[in-house]
């Protein structure tokens, strides 16, 4: 099968590669760029492990083709961490503090989703957090600690937030 050129802004750097059309974004990030923080689980959109931000919104990287992502901006956990993204960083600290991860397989995806949630809703209820993370499977924690961590991150961000006026 022929290959097609795709150019994606990944974590602030423009990358161009020739790819087979069937290469999905998660395999592209891992295989072509070595960004193995994006995990591949079910490959049909159910487990949430491959969730990344594309143009600032969460997507399943297993359900986006690398050729479809051409011209778009993608942020992975590596980029969010390196950029010291304020919300992601608060979440990472809270996830450690609340034991919201064990094996870590689901964590990068959950951090992307929780980052999107706290960007849109800085003070989510526990119910809203549960709804937001309902598209992620975690087989270690039982989710309770993850909800705690997201809530703690929201509380920390609320106290460190610069007053807007």
């Amino acid at each position: 099968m022929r290959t097609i050129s795709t150019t994606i802004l990944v974590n602030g750097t423009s990358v161009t590669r020739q790819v087979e059309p069937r290469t999905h974004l998660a395999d592209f990030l891992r295989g072509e760029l070595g960004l193995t923080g994006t995990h591949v689980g079910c490959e049909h959109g159910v487990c949430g492990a491959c969730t990344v931000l594309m143009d600032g919104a969460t997507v399943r990287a297993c359900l986006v083709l690398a050729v479809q992502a051409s011209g778009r901006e993608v942020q992975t956990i590596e980029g969010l961490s390196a950029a010291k993204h304020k919300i992601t960083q608060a979440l990472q600290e809270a996830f450690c503090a609340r034991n919201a991860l064990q094996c870590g397989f689901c964590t990068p995806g959950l951090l992307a989703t929780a980052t999107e949630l706290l960007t849109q809703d800085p003070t989510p209820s526990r119910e809203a957090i549960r709804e937001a993370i309902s598209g992620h499977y975690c087989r270690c924690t039982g989710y309770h600690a993850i909800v705690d961590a997201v809530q703690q991150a929201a509380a920390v961000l609320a106290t460190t937030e610069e007053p807007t006026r």
Partner: protein
Amino acid sequence: MKPTAFDYVRADSVPHAVRLLAEHRAGARIIAGGQSLLAAMNFRMASPEILVDIGEIEELRDITLTARGRLRIGALTRHADLEASPDIATHAPLLRQAIRHVAHTAIRNRGTFGGSLSHADPASELPACAVALDATIHIVGPQGERTVPARQFFTGVHETALRSGELLVAAEIDTIKPDEVSGFQEFARRHGDYAIVGLAAHGRIEAGRLCQIAPVFFSVGGTPILARHAAAALADPAVAEPETRLRRAREALSSDLDPPGDPQASAALRMELARVLLGRVVGDMLATRTGA
């Protein structure tokens, strides 16, 4: 799993997409958000030779009020767009209610309205809403544009009135009137999972009573099902008491539905859940109107 190898081409416009479909004929599939198609391809349940990507045709991503006072929703309107749109909230509250039940945020950020209708999954929410709202489906193909009522569009499991080489470009619905009301509920094992049974309903209320209703069940057969017998009982002018109407409507559901059983739920459980949903949704609709 990984999909089988395929070719890929981006369409710049609707005519370009139609030309590409004509050129590649049966081997081609349209991809928009890809949230169902790519999953099916990763399972190797679908193996197209070439994907025609319509995802970048911006003109298909509009929600507009037409000169005739109808709401036209472009095929590429994403679920997240529907969720955020003030026009949808005001003029098509049924879609606003339903959309939160469609999968999860990451899927809603990519999945499209037209894709959901064309894919015609029997367990999905938006086809049922289109039938309840008596939507008109706009289709473009090699012979030009044609329209099909949503009530004739869904013909089977993943089967629609779309012919080979055609593209769904929009759906049009009437904006909600002051005496009309919508209701939506579903049962699923986990928030965002496919429904075991779901109900989308739209109706008209006069003097506190339903005088017309379109209750459309999904995940109870190959297509969304408009429960005509239950609808007649719910809006029966000869019966005054709402409780009697509802009881008769629940009984009438056995004439409307013949749900399948599967490992998720037996046929009997689906039928029972459909009866429960009917009561809840009708209750919601009446409560909305009386401001309770």
